[in-house]
């Protein structure tokens, strides 16, 4: 008995000192949002602060091809109860071999090449309360298998369960004047959130040309909004999560200082089909006058032929994005991305700016501002016309 106990202790000591390597990292964030305009709905609050943490634990089984990663996220928001939330961003086991890889658990997967919107990127649900731009995602449970060969990489996804989109609550900004009922979404699939989705993606590159083809079969991450106005109750918006089939194509040509980018999708859902694309370029003037400054110029065209009242809406149906990316390449890694999205046929001008700079060795200060100008009735973003904001973030990394 003593021997077994001794052996066990020895094993634990060996594992903890030699075989295992573990790491804790992450960040803590203070965020301040300033809304200069009063809200559409009196119940909505304006300026306020919030706090967030995102710790990440990594376990590596001593140089073996097994690893575990756990990324947790939580935010407290001063006003909005729905924005006060937590999520398992990642929690997965991964094993890799020379030409294949498998992972099981919650993961975040990014597809695509363009900057102004991400059409082909459909694996993860958007954590919409985090940011209006939709870049923040909820962890998606999956079994992911990757096969790597000379002819390219094949990625297979079995998506075991659906995550509902997060929406701002009664007191939050970036919402419709009538509230969304997030408690009772309507699914097209009879297995509702338990429906298993399937996706694959083929990725390869030939010289300067990177490309991928993807296909997704399952429940759309983006819902339809159905206003319900029945007698005796306050009107509300019902969420409809329909089944869809989406094929996506992405490509990037890297030639000298030019990046040429394309993303296109065709989606079939609720009995109809639509197409959408983003196409554009990024040109970088690098190390201008030997100052280290890089100035990138971006232009993208966003086209979407969907019926905005039939399908889950996309506000960018015929827009142009022009912008500039400044990287100072200094010790503080100062960067600025400024741009404007314009509906060049209709109304709507949406300027935005993001800037970041390191302070000391472990703090990053971010500034972000978005405005909604010249919107018109019938535009999805018309509901956000009072939500111009300036955001300050102080992130401490450890």
């Amino acid at each position: 008995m003593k021997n077994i106990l001794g052996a066990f202790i020895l094993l634990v000591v060996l594992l903890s000192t030699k075989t295992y390597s573990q790491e804790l990292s992450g960040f803590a964030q203070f965020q301040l949002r300033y809304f200069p305009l009063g809200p559409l709905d009196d119940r909505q609050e304006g300026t306020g602060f919030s706090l967030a943490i995102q710790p990440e634990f990594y376990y590596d089984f001593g140089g073996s091809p097994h690893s575990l990663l756990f990324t947790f996220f939580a935010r407290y928001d001063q006003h909005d109860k729905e924005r006060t939330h937590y999520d398992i961003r990642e929690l997965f086991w991964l094993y890799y071999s020379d030409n294949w890889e498998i992972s099981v658990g919650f993961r975040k997967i990014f597809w695509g090449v363009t900057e102004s919107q991400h059409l082909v990127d459909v694996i993860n649900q958007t954590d919409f309360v985090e940011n209006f731009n939709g870049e923040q995602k909820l962890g998606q449970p999956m079994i992911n298998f990757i096969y790597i060969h000379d002819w390219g990489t094949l990625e297979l996804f079995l998506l075991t369960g659906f995550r509902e989109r997060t929406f701002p609550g009664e007191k939050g900004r970036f919402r419709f004047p009538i509230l969304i009922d997030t408690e009772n979404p309507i699914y097209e699939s009879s297995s509702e959130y338990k429906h298993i989705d399937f996706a694959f993606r083929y990725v390869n590159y030939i010289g300067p040309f990177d490309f991928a083809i993807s296909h997704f079969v399952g429940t759309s991450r983006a819902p339809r909004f159905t206003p319900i106005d029945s007698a005796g109750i306050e009107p509300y918006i019902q969420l409809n999560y329909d089944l869809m089939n989406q094929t996506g194509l992405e490509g990037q040509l890297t030639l000298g200082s030019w990046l040429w980018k394309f993303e296109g999708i065709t989606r079939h859902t609720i009995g109809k089909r639509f197409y959408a694309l983003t196409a554009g370029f990024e040109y970088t003037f690098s190390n201008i006058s030997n100052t280290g400054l890089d100035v990138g110029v971006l232009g993208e065209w966003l086209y979407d032929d969907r019926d905005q009242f039939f399908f889950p809406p996309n506000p960018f149906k015929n827009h142009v994005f022009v912008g500039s990316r400044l990287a100072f390449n200094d010790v503080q890694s100062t960067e600025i991305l400024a741009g404007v999205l314009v509906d060049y046929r209709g109304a709507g001008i949406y300027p935005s700016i993001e800037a970041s700079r390191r302070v000391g060795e472990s703090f990053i200060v971010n500034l972000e501002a978005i405005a909604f100008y010249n919107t018109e009735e019938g535009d999805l973003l018309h509901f956000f016309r009072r939500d111009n904001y300036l955001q300050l973030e102080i992130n401490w990394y450890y």
Partner: protein
Amino acid sequence: MSFINNLKYIFIVLIAFTMMLSAQTPEEKGLEIAIEADKRDLGFGDSSSELTMILRNKQGDESKRKISNKTLEVKDDGDKSLVIFNEPRDVKGTAFLSFTHKSGPDDQWLYLPALKRVKRIASDNKSGPFMGSEFAYEDISSQEVEKYTYKYLKDETVDGIDCFVMERYPVDENSGYTRQIVWIDKAEYRPMKVDFYDRKNSMLKTLTYHEYKQYMDKYWRADKLSMINHQTGKSTDLLFADYKFANGFSDSDFNQNSLKRAR
């Protein structure tokens, strides 16, 4: 017209010919040194190391970067490398995959861990600073013979070590330099010192190599590289540790999936 005269004539021609063969131009000698230096580093297979960068401004304030580095030698082409950023903490997990080529642009991908996004990036920014340091991208990428033309200048002794001194001229028009003067030690063909001249042909930076160690009884690596910018007064030290060879790396350790897994 005698037989002797004919013989004399043939003899003179022969001597002139052999002289022509043996009298190298400075360009030929420079190239020969570069080829020999390259040859002595051939066959290392793969290597890994941990790098600490110390960035100093004019006032002497320091800032630190930590990077892990993996390299795979590719036969008849430039090396493949994977660079993983560990510090500052905000860039932790960011990784950079590069396939250098002897001719033509390199293939480069960047992994951004916050978005889980792999981006193919333009590789023609040779002259820009690497992570805010005094090292340009072209200073730290794999040095291939084909990337320069050469001219031998003279022999000189640096810190008691006999060196060849030669000038080299970048082939790539995106290079930030008109020329570099390189001191290479005669015994082992290792670079000891490099002076960089900017596009206006004024002295920009000096790089010195310190504390060379030999690995696998053949390959020399310096533990410390110091770059001083004469125009700004800033400097950067690269401190290499934990050099390992024969890790058994293969192509599968240098693709977009290993880039995402890297840490």
